[in-house]
């Protein structure tokens, strides 16, 4: 009946970004002005001073000032950033309102920027690379993850992934708790566990739980694992020897982990680079 929107729309994000301070060079003279947010000024012609972005934009529209773009909004810095973004597997640190501020400045104060066209295309490139990294890292959502760490995300990126991630993680969480209950029940009844139907989706969950597994099941599981890890599709035959070795290794690991309670881990938000 009541669906509460937990997402901010782009205009609300712009609103939040407009509280960031920015440097302007006024062309009028005025003493300190007292605002609710604080006092700004004094304004002396051609002496830079810091004001919130909304104030800068309003003055700019009335041609009362020149906006000094932030240090990172510059062809050289952005080229460097693009290179850094290209070289790094994970998304890099960036201003939390990167997109909002740069787009507003490009729209309303492009004459204060050097090479606005070049800056625009650089910003687009950086944005696209970051988005593609984020898309690749959807694999971070797994049943054993109780949380996803999303460092370096800008506000806008968080807003973009939030609806999808929060929903899907809730579903995964429900399933993993259900599975946990079922596994415990089966263990207490000392019945040979039979949940091969779940294995595809929840193999990680199962790994440590399974004390006695018959070899067929083991092999089946390992095949799945290898497929995920190496992502070769048609080499079941070649992998058989490796499977056997891994079987042994895994049995050892299982024995070591036998008595430890299973704790779900925190997943870091990384892009999948195994390819």
């Amino acid at each position, binding site marked *: *009946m*009541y669906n*509460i*929107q*937990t997402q*901010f729309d782009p205009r*609300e994000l712009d*609103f*939040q970004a*407009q*509280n960031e301070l920015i440097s302007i060079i006024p062309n*009028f003279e*005025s003493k300190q*002005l*007292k*605002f*609710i*947010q*604080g006092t700004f000024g004094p304004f002396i012609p051609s002496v830079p001073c810091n004001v919130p972005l*909304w*104030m800068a934009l*309003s*003055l700019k529209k*009335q041609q*009362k000032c020149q906006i000094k773009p932030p240090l990172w909004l510059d062809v050289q810095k952005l080229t460097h950033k693009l290179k850094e973004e290209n070289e790094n597997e994970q998304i890099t640190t960036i201003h939390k309102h990167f997109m909002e501020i740069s787009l507003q400045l490009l729209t309303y104060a492009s004459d204060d920027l050097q090479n606005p066209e070049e800056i625009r295309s650089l910003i687009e490139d950086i944005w696209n690379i970051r988005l593609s990294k984020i898309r690749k890292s959807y694999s971070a959502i797994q049943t054993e993850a*109780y*949380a*996803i*760490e*999303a*460092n*370096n*995300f800008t*506000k806008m990126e*968080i807003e973009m*992934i*939030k609806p999808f*991630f*929060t*929903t899907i*993680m*809730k579903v995964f*969480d*429900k399933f993993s708790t259900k599975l*946990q209950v079922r596994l415990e029940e089966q263990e207490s009844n000392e019945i040979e566990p039979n949940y091969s139907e779940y294995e595809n989706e929840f193999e990680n969950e199962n790994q440590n739980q399974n004390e006695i597994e018959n070899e067929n099941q083991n092999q089946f599981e390992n095949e799945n694992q290898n497929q995920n890890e190496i992502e070769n599709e048609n080499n079941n035959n070649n992998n058989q020897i490796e499977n056997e070795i891994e079987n042994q290794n895994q049995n050892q690991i299982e024995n070591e982990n036998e008595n430890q*309670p*299973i*704790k*779900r*881990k*925190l997943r870091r938000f990384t892009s999948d680079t195994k390819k």
Partner: protein
Amino acid sequence: MNLIPDLEKAWINEKNSPEIFPFNETLVNETQNQLNKQESFIFQQQSQNQTPTFILNLYETEIERIKFLLRSYLRIRLRKIEKFSSNIINDSQIQSLLSEKEFQFVQKFHNLIINHLDESFLSKLKRKKNFFQNKIDQPDFEEFVACQVLEDIENVQFEDQDLEDDDLKEGKLFIIKYKNIRSFVLEDKMKLL
């Protein structure tokens, strides 16, 4: 003074959390006070005719921005109050989180809903008692939320027993189940995003 950043944080927290937070009365009253003061100040300046119009424009822009913030905060609370109205009526603990006006609103709203449902079809049903008990909307603490750590928290023991303990470092962003971090948000050690 951190009035406006605090109000903004309260707005964002309120928007993202599945439950209703305690009403921040001092914050809202103080903002209202400041707005009134500033408005009379502008009026004074206008009548004196000394301040250039573009500066008056700046003052007015700020007032509009803060009003927008304040309204958004109050409006998102009203939406939640509507959603959980029958829950609030039955639970005095949640009632203490509301402001006086909000409480008056929820009583009226609840009566309207009940009357409406009664008139339209409930009076024709035999077992209407159960109907309401089954239909009460509860805040869902199992929701996942995005949040940021505001100060270092060491050796976090999460609500869910099967989670690995961890240190939470300042500035980190997480997407995590609300239940596990609820206490930190209420203690202002974390904020929602």
